[in-house]
């Protein structure tokens, strides 16, 4: 299922179908300071750099 994103009220979210897999209400920094997102474009650019870290959801476990 394709991953989609949305940006509402300063919070960025990535979704797998209806399921929120990333909930990011602030811009993360190297120091831990939690800075407000400047805009959706900034959040989208950040997502592009980290999206490979997040995997699938609701997978049926394989069995022998």
């Amino acid at each position, binding site marked *: 299922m394709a991953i989609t994103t949305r940006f509402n009220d300063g919070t960025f*979210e990535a979704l797998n179908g209806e399921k929120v*897999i990333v*909930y*990011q209400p602030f811009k993360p920094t190297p120091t*831990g300071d939690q800075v407000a997102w400047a805009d959706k474009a900034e959040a989208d650019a950040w997502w592009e750099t980290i999206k490979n870290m997040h*995997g*699938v959801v*609701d997978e049926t*476990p394989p069995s022998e």
Partner: protein
Amino acid sequence: MPEVAVNRASNSMYAVIEDANLSKNRIFIEGQGYDANTLSPLWMQKYHFNHAESYIYTHDNFVEWGLMILSKGVESCWGNGDSQSYNTGFVDTRWRSLDFPNFPVRRGWKTAGGRSYYSITGRTNANSGDNFNNIHIVADDATLGTTYQSGNSEGVPNAFLFEDSSNNRMWGFFSGRPDFDRIMTWTGYESGLNSISRPLDSQWQRHFFMGRDDSGFLFFVTVRLNDTAHFSRYTISKIHPSSTAVTTVISDSHRSYNNHYMRSYPSNIRRDSATRRVFYSSHFEGTYSSLSPIRYVWNPSDGSVAAANCTMTYAGADTFATHAAAYSTEGADYYNRNSWNMQPWQFTVSGTNYITFWIIDRSAAFGSGSSRWSSSGKRTMMTYTIGSGTNDNVLTYHSKVTFASVNDIPRGLMPMNDAGTQMAVPYTGGLRFYTFNTTTGWEMTSTYPTEFRMIGLDQSNRLWGASREKGSHTIHVITPTLPITISVVMADTSYVYTGNSISTTANVNAYNSTGDRVAANVSLTIDGNGMLFTSSNSKNTTLATSNSTNTQVSITISGGGLNNIIASVDI
């Protein structure tokens, strides 16, 4: 206790499985059950491997790695090449958790509902892409067979991180090929693996479990391995306990070093207070320059983490380079699937915190190990005193250990006591125990002459090791806390015999391998003809030493010449 089992019959038996239901006090050695205290065989009690293991029994994982399941963690300590080969770069259960005493990671896990999970897991040969993972769930008794099992290459976890009964979730990790690393969670865990999610699922990265905050979020440090600059960048994430949505708390945390294929793993967590948990990175600054860690302060009450660069302090004009050198890139793989890493370890002695930056190389004896560790500077590990209070980002040089040769480089690390001041350290050719001394630093206290593929601790703090010196594999149990040192000190440094008997005393003490005075039954024998033990009026006596004060023995000198006292211990 030394060697306890030699497997000559099969090359594919799981070496040791401690019963996840610890109350059963049972350990399976090559499938056969034993009483965990006495190691007496338990009649007709065998781990119930099922048909699904048919392919496992033909695989050589068990020979190569001597796999074990032990409740206080296991440590892989062997690889056969610089990268992309058996076991290189694998992080086993002991080092998956930064807070192991409070959040242990295990391959055997007893659930609140009375079931037990076992990850009967082979490791990956990255060259062939093989993975062999099997999950068993048993109801109460591992000798009676599974209620559920799932075998798969990459879809089931290697080990279990956390059981969250309130959200009906189990958490675990999968680490297969040197490039894969996944945090996994599933629901309905008492019956099986249902609706598996992989909130963190990365190539070229390693995830470390920090524990949970006060709101129930699970926190992880992710170390990125294949950067083209600023190697070992850290990301800290928190995962919602029910929705599994991920929020990044810290991103892109690093120091500035390039062209340097080091795995700079995080230290264990120190709990200063209910609102302050602290750990450190092992980053470097500059190219082959200086150790420059980052301090991370996690407040579990609000979920925040603050990062600050450490200030490194040395005597006079000294620098890191005065004492040590960062090891270099010989044998490094582009994706950093390498067998070596830095493993920082912090501990507390008498209210003072220390941190040692251990160097680990599972393949030191293979590939480019000899050039990677070619100088004494590269083979030197550093220990620092941590500043007090909130000045704990100031690290002051304390001491160093230089490993004599490439074969002396640690292949792994296993803390042996709660204080963290005693380490079991496998190396090429054997196993050593190191003890920390606040004046002189880490000192080697004893050696066990067997080279291990895996070591681990059971619930009784016994060290187990799987090796390959005989048969398909050999199992050892090693207890490092025997009274190995006996001290006998006469009341005076010299005596002048003038024809009259001299009554005097000697202080007798026994010390264990950590240097602590212990109670022991000591046998003393006089070698010489000029004195006797007063109480027995003979050359032999026995006494029980105290663990708190000198134990005195009376001696009568009745002649001149040289006399020695020979001591031995009844164990």
